[in-house]
């Protein structure tokens, strides 16, 4: 893999923003090696799609159809018929399905003001487990790069120094959106891998002091300053969420 591969693939997939696209096209026009690499990567697209299509044909449909629960299963389903029942913690079952539904709703814009952004975040946070972010172990340079990129999108000065939190390890930072407004997410994990998120929403909210609440097994602490709402959320005690929020409030 070469340095420019990610940009070239994003160009092929039509996923670059206009300015990046223009800059890369200019480089391609002037650089024969880069054009050759672009072509090498472009040619992999059709084989990938075709191979995945062919894999569909290998699915054991008859067996899978036969294993589908009957039409009225919702009313009388007996989970012991399936091999995974004993593996499922009850809270995971509930949180998973509820979270997935609301995640889908928030992702596809169905909240439409009927619910607030904290609800949207709380519901998809249910989907995150102690394995979601724990594998991410960015070095200092990567951490600074990710924070800088998210900071630029949400208009905040985000650095490894001002986002260091006691007992938590930074894993990754990424962008989402809520009803079209930029939503930056900084994900930490505690020593057990449990996620704690700092979310920053550019919503022009008036300044507001830290408040907190419990939603199921999640604690939320939020405040607003400079036209941005901030939220700390995780499966942690409410007072810890508040303490983290107050620490961050002084820094960002």
């Amino acid at each position, binding site marked *: 893999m070469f340095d420019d591969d990610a940009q070239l*693939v994003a160009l092929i997939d039509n996923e670059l923003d206009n300015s990046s696209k223009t800059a890369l096209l200019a480089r391609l026009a002037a650089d024969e090696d880069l054009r050759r690499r672009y072509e090498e990567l472009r040619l992999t697209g059709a084989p990938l799609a075709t191979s995945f299509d062919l894999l569909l044909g290998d699915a054991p449909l008859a067996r899978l159809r036969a*294993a589908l629960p009957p039409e009225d299963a919702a009313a009388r389903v007996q989970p012991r018929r399936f091999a995974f029942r004993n593996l499922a913690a009850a809270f995971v079952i509930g949180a998973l399905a509820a979270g997935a*539904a609301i995640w889908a709703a928030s992702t596809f814009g*169905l909240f439409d003001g009927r619910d607030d952004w904290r609800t949207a975040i709380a519901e998809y946070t249910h989907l995150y487990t102690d394995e979601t972010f724990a594998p*991410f172990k960015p070095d200092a340079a990567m951490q600074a790069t990710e924070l800088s990129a998210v900071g630029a999108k949400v208009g905040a000065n985000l650095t490894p120094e001002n986002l260091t939190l006691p007992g938590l390890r930074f894993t990754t930072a990424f962008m989402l959106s809520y009803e079209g407004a930029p939503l930056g997410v900084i994900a930490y994990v505690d020593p057990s891998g449990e996620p704690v998120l700092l979310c920053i929403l550019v919503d022009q909210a008036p300044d507001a002091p830290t408040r907190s609440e419990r939603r199921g097994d999640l604690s939320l602490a939020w405040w607003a300053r400079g036209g941005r709402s901030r939220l700390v959320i995780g499966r942690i005690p409410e007072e810890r969420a508040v303490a983290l929020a107050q620490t961050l409030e002084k820094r960002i």
Partner: protein
Amino acid sequence: MNSSEAMSEASRREVRAELEPSLARLWRYALVLSKARDVADDLVQATCLRAIERADQFVPGTRVDRWLFAILRSIWLNEIRSRRIREGGGFVDAEETLTTDGAHEIEMNITASAVLRAIDRLPEAQRETVLLVYGEGYSYAEAAAALGVPIGTIMSRLASGRAALAKLK
């Protein structure tokens, strides 16, 4: 029937109607994640059961297939994969787990089998991302949200996947 019950009934109908048409794609996702056909079969069954049990929590009008994929992925991460790791074995990478019948020579003068072998050798996170974007049509942003990673990570995973395939020529 009140409005809440009517919505639950609509959710159940919608989920139920989409289960069977989604089976092959769910199985493909399960196979790409687990690299084991027996695990893929069980994972799809568990996903269908979970979806039916919780169908009243599906929001009508949103995409059932994406909801099913999220359920499948969570069962994989929270229950099956983590259990195997706890048991100390992890997953043994069987040879040519991702295969398909026939040669199917395709563009680049390589076969689908060669492409699938190359995908097979990718780390799980790359395999999953490549499938969601190139097999399932997720946008980068959708893949990032579904997997809980930055778009830059999606870009890096896709580039790694394509770079591996580019070496096949």
